[in-house]
């Protein structure tokens, strides 16, 4: 919302206080001021000129050559095409060098051979209106020649831009008078009186009103006769222009002016269109009406209509009807000033997408006392402009409204306690009284009378009053206070700590990059990851079509991020600790189950993946995950081949399950080739999904250490030839068994397949360390071990390759 400084001055004496000071005061005590701009700086850039003479142009019939005194030594010669320019006029002159709106710089020129040193401006060139059939003859015939026009006419102004959000709770601040009242309190000035009483009226019967809907608590109707619809006076136009309202004609401007002045929307009907009286009712299903913007609106019973003779003439609180609007020939009016239910108006405006200045005010819940003031104010303004205007009948007042004025008991100690200020009850009362609250003090309690303009919505509780006191003091005056409480460590959040350790280990030793993804999973990704048949929480109003699903798992987005990064590097390792939602599991309150998940994705160039038996994505990811679990003290988690209940992105037969005592903790798998293809992953890729809650509840292994061997061990390498189906795990078992307790460790270091082994065969090679706790091993131990190993292996169809 925009405020004109000069407009505010109509209501409060701001002498000695600049617009910037007003802005700072409002910012610190009332609402947010987003900026202060001078109004129409072009009116300061142009100079008052006195037209001395106008001669015809020697070469052009329509042009005149003027001599204009602009206070310089010599009058300026200006060529001007306006028909209405003539000697004696005071005009606005843009001298050479002046820049007018639209970045239009005035230059010395020659027009049909005659030199011209400037321009005499029309209203349109000064952005004061659309008139351009002549120059603007200044309304002050004695305006001081040579001074800036704004100064000479006394119309310098500043515009304050108020952040609407900061006054949503203050219905009273949506007009200049309300803001002026606030400033009067803040600066200790007096609000100027405003006579809003209705002038004498004739004896004709008041207009017939029927209000059938409680969503219209009050409706005033007042006929006004003897009106001429002409341009509004310049002073009004300038104030409207300052707050970005385009002047149209007197009646429209007047209605707007009153709304912007008192924050009370109102409407002027052409009386000829509402002769049947006024009826306020709910719209019927399917009913339509054409609003002033010439758009046909479809209505529902949620909307409130102003009707005459059964037909809608206005959409209540939002916009008037096209058929009943005032026109150039309007001479009799019906003034409507009403109070409507805020939520109703807000809903209608939102539903039809038409948020007007009026609806924005009604939705704040206006004071039902205000309409009568607004009616009186409008009539008095109109009569000041057109004294012949008459009121044939008394104002009609319908609707069942109650005065919202209220009383609130406020304990002085509650104020001092919450704000931490040392003020007496009397000082507190004074603060409130300045803001027009009535206060009676009795026994440490302030009985506060809340005026209706604050009580309609804003002030309902003692805390609301504490806020009034706090902001009137200024929160900057409240000293900071050390927060003292018992020293007790805050409760530790095991999941959060786990998440932090996971991220640290993965980003450190694991060399993974944390890559969080959106909670919304696009349709395309859902399909690519094979999740199209899964249930999703979905938003009904997504940012974009197809972006409505809330992810179940963090993994699909991590898979999606592989391909773009693979264009630039041969290995990509990503992780996220995040949340997914499973709508098929809901609690009694309807909340979907939340999964806190660690997701990992890893892709490696195929050529690199094939270098060794453990260079592939799955082996790399498994190694990193094993290291992670070890670092978390969860080395006891079992790995096994998983076949059932796999994620859709998982390869059906190359999948591993991690399980603890309570069952599955997660899945680590090769990425399904189809999913990889869908996502453009032209590399070896694997991923993992680990449930953090399951991981957290898996008990940590014993944290005691294993002693370092005191006696030297023996290192040897063994290789086996065996059938392809026999697993590394089985062979490791054979080695351990054959050691009879002496095998300290085994490490697979080569897997070989080749023609010399024969089809369906492979070779495995291990480093083995033999180790005894009580003695140094000798060659004989090694020989015995190898003999046993050879025999045991043979029984299992595995050949120990000697030499």
């Amino acid at each position, binding site marked *: 919302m925009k405020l004109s400084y000069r407009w505010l001055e109509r209501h409060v004496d701001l002498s000695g206080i600049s617009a910037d000071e007003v802005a700072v005061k409002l910012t610190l005590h009332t609402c947010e001021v987003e900026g202060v701009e001078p109004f129409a700086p072009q009116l300061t850039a142009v100079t008052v000129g006195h037209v001395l003479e106008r001669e015809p142009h020697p070469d052009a019939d329509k042009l005149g050559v003027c001599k204009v005194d602009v206070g310089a030594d010599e009058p300026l010669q200006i060529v001007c095409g306006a028909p209405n320019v003539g000697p004696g006029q005071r005009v606005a002159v843009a001298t050479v060098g002046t820049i007018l709106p639209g970045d239009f710089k005035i230059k010395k020129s020659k027009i049909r051979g005659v030199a011209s040193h400037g321009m005499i401006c029309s209203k349109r060139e000064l952005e004061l209106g659309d008139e351009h059939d002549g120059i603007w003859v200044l309304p002050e015939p004695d305006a001081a020649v040579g001074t800036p026009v704004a100064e000479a006419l006394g119309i310098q102004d500043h515009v304050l831009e108020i952040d609407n959000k900061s006054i949503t709770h203050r219905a009273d601040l949506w007009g200049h008078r309300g803001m002026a009242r606030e400033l009067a309190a803040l600066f200790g000035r007096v609000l100027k009186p405003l006579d809003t009483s209705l002038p004498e009226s004739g004896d004709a019967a008041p207009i017939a009103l029927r209000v059938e809907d409680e969503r219209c608590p009050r409706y005033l109707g007042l006929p006004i006769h003897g009106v001429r619809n002409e341009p509004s006076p310049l002073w009004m136009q300038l104030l409207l222009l300052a707050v970005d309202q385009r002047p149209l004609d007197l009646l429209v401007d007047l209605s707007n002016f009153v709304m912007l002045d008192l924050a009370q929307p109102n409407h002027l009907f052409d009386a000829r269109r509402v002769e049947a009286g006024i009826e306020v009712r709910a719209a019927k299903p399917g009913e339509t009406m054409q609003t002033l913007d010439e758009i046909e609106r479809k209505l529902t019973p949620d909307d409130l209509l102003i009707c005459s003779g059964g037909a809608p003439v206005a959409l209540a609180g939002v916009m008037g009807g096209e058929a009943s609007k005032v026109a150039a020939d309007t001479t009799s009016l019906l003034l409507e000033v009403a109070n409507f239910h805020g939520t109703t108006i807000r809903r209608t405006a939102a539903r039809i997408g038409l948020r007007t200045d009026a609806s924005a005010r009604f939705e704040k819940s206006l004071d039902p006392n205000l309409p009568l003031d607004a009616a009186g104010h409008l009539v008095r303004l109109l009569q000041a402009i057109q004294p012949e205007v008459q009121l044939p009948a008394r104002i009609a007042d319908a609707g069942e409204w109650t005065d919202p004025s209220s009383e609130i008991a406020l304990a002085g100690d509650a104020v001092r306690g919450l704000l931490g200020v040392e003020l007496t009850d009397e000082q507190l009362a004074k603060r409130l009284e300045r803001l027009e609250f009535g206060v009676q003090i009795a026994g440490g309690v302030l009985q506060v009378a809340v005026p209706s303009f604050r009580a309609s919505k804003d002030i309902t*509780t003692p805390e609301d009053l504490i806020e009034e006191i706090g902001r009137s003091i200024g929160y900057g005056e409240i000293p900071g*206070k050390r927060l003292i409480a018992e020293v007790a460590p805050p409760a530790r959040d095991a999941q959060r700590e786990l998440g932090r350790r996971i991220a640290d280990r993965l980003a450190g030793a694991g060399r993974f990059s944390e890559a969080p993804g959106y909670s919304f999973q696009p349709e395309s990704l859902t399909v690519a990851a094979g999740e199209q048949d899964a249930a999703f929480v979905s938003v009904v109003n997504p940012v974009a079509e197809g972006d409505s699903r*809330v992810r179940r798992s963090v993994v699909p987005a991590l898979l999606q991020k592989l391909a773009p990064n693979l264009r630039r590097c041969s290995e990509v390792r990503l992780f996220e600790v995040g949340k997914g939602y499973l709508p098929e599991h809901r609690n009694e309150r309807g*909340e979907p189950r939340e999964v806190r998940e660690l997701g990992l994705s890893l892709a490696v160039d195929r050529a690199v993946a094939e270098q060794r038996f453990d260079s592939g994505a799955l082996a790399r990811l498994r190694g990193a995950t094993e290291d992670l679990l070890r670092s978390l003290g969860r080395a006891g988690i079992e790995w096994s081949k998983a076949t059932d209940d796999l994620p859709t992105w998982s390869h059906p037969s190359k999948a591993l399950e991690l399980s603890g005592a309570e069952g599955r903790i997660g899945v680590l798998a090769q990425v399904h080739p189809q999913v990889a293809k869908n996502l453009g992953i032209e590399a070896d890729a694997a991923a993992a999904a680990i449930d953090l809650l399951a991981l957290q509840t898996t008990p940590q292994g014993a944290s005691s250490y294993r002693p370092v061997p005191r006696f030297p061990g023996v290192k040897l390498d063994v290789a086996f030839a065996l059938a392809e189906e026999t697993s590394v795990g089985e062979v490791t078992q054979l080695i351990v068994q054959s050691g009879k307790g002496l095998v300290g460790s085994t490490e697979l270091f080569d897997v070989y397949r080749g023609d010399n082994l024969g089809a369906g065969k492979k070779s495995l090679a291990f480093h083995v360390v033999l180790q005894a706790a009580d003695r140094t091993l000798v060659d004989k131990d090694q020989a015995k071990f190898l003999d046993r190993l050879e025999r045991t292996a043979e029984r299992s169809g595995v050949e120990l390759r000697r030499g």
Partner: protein
Amino acid sequence: MTTPDFKALEAEAATRVSAASDDEALRAILREYTDKGGVVAGLLAQIPTLEPSERKGFGQSANALKQGVLAAVETRRGELEAARLEAELNAGGFDATLPGAALDAGSLHPLTHVRREVEDIFTSMGYAVLDGPEVELDYYNFQALNIPADHPSREEQDTFYCDAEHTLVMRTQTSPVQIRAMETLVPPFRVIVPGRVFRNEEQDATHEHTFHQVEGLVVGEGIQVGHLTWTLKRFLAELFGYEPKIRLRPGFFPFVEPGFELDMSCGFCDGKGCRVCKESGWIEFCGCGMVHRNVLEAGFAGRDDVDVEKLTGFAFGFGLDRLVMTRFAIDDIRQFMGGDLRFLKQF
């Protein structure tokens, strides 16, 4: 037989040793003089042929020759080693611009870095860190926060709704965890809640539909406005490493009363006014206020162990994304979720 000229022999050996240019040559000399069948052995073999009176002197001289050779070789070795070391130290060919071996290290997200700083500062001040659901009940996100069904601020928040009945929403703020905290904790308590929030906004370089907030809530007896300002001032001082000026001004949030906007002095211009602070000298940091009575009533409803009448509290909520963007001079918020390693690996 003639007595050999031991002096000449020693001199010859010394000359050869000092001429040796490497260890190989020195070892050859040693072999020649000291091995079986070498020069010294040959001399000693002559002893039985000597007059008994000469034997002792001859033997001593031969041994002296051997010792002399050994000593000379050792000395020469030292010289050669010193020369080698000297040469190594003076060798050129060092390229100071040769890069180190690439580690291809991992990385934590910039949001994680700053979020952890925030968490650590508040935990050091005795705050617990809480978490709450991103898919949230309307009750927690709005109703219990004093935002009833028809409240205008619901529309301004551009809520994503998860069902036609609007019972579930993508939380628009971390504030619902205020209620969840009140439902489970026993006052006095102080908590922060970092987390993801959602608003239906068009995305551009500075706007996201998904962003991050940190909520703070302190509840107890006698909590005042001054406690709020002191706390946030301490926090900002820890976070930025200097103590900014702060100011509170009225701000409207339905779940606090009184409600404030907290501004901090602009760190770019030291409060003098610049492009960053739009010439005001102040930067909006967060919304905050004293917890609304209705919110306390809703949060502690049905709790026999809590006398809600006696309680007051303060709450605040600030955006994390803007802090991170300022910290690292990131100009496009969309990078956060973009997953580009060229971005992620910088942190």
